[in-house]
């Protein structure tokens, strides 16, 4: 069975930018047939939530280091480098799925 990937989507306040990124990556995962659980959080919550998650997508600076792969997703806000960012998100999720098999 293919693993369902648990993805944290974080920004500073958990209000604005992560909302935009949530919808972008939701569609992206759907288009690539990757089964995910998305959770929108404040970046301050990431440290405690990483245990139950596989990857972290953030629009803000990372205040610490994490045990799970992290991706900076400012490009979804500025429109700069979106293709590369999409590829990084998909590649990371696929790698997590491969490793779980």
């Amino acid at each position, binding site marked *: 069975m293919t693993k369902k990937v648990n993805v944290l989507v974080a920004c*500073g306040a958990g*209000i604005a930018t992560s909302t935009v990124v949530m919808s972008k990556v939701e569609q992206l995962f759907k288009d690539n047939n990757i089964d995910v659980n998305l959770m929108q959080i404040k970046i301050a919550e990431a440290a405690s939530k990483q245990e139950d998650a596989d990857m972290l997508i953030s629009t803000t600076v990372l205040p610490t280091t994490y045990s799970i792969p992290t991706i900076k997703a*400012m490009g979804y806000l500025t429109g700069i480098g979106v293709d590369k960012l999409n590829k990084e998100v998909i590649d990371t999720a696929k790698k997590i799925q491969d490793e779980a098999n």
Partner: protein
Amino acid sequence: MTTNNTVEVSDYLRDQLIFLHTSFKSTDELFGAVSDVAKENGFVTDQFLPKITKREATFPTGLQLEHRGVAIPHTDADTIKKEFVAVVVNDQPVNFKRMDDPSQEVGAKLAFVLGLNKPHAQLEMLQALMSIIQDDALVEKLENVDSVSTVHELLSNKN
């Protein structure tokens, strides 16, 4: 994706919170002015100013676009009593730290101060705002805007 084009950034504009031809020298001055008017008109609590100042210091919101900078400062939902998007067009760029790298700064003439209190609920408006930010010609128009009515015009019917 279901995109609801009936929601526009202009729906969130409040005329008192459109600041044109200002000459703020810093984010502190800018936040202070926005907070004063927002508080006076019942949009925010007393905690808005300290919280947005602190949040901007820790998690800055300056976005480096291809040709210019824009900032989208915002803070916790519990400081917002009535939702708004404040528009600040400063004559000179105000230095914001960059969202992706706080060790660097970006000069922004245009700032959208987001007063949002329903986390996750304003997707359409935020998507509309992001597509505005990504439209260089439109941002340039906003940087040179002269009237509140033009701001409304430029921020409606986008997409």
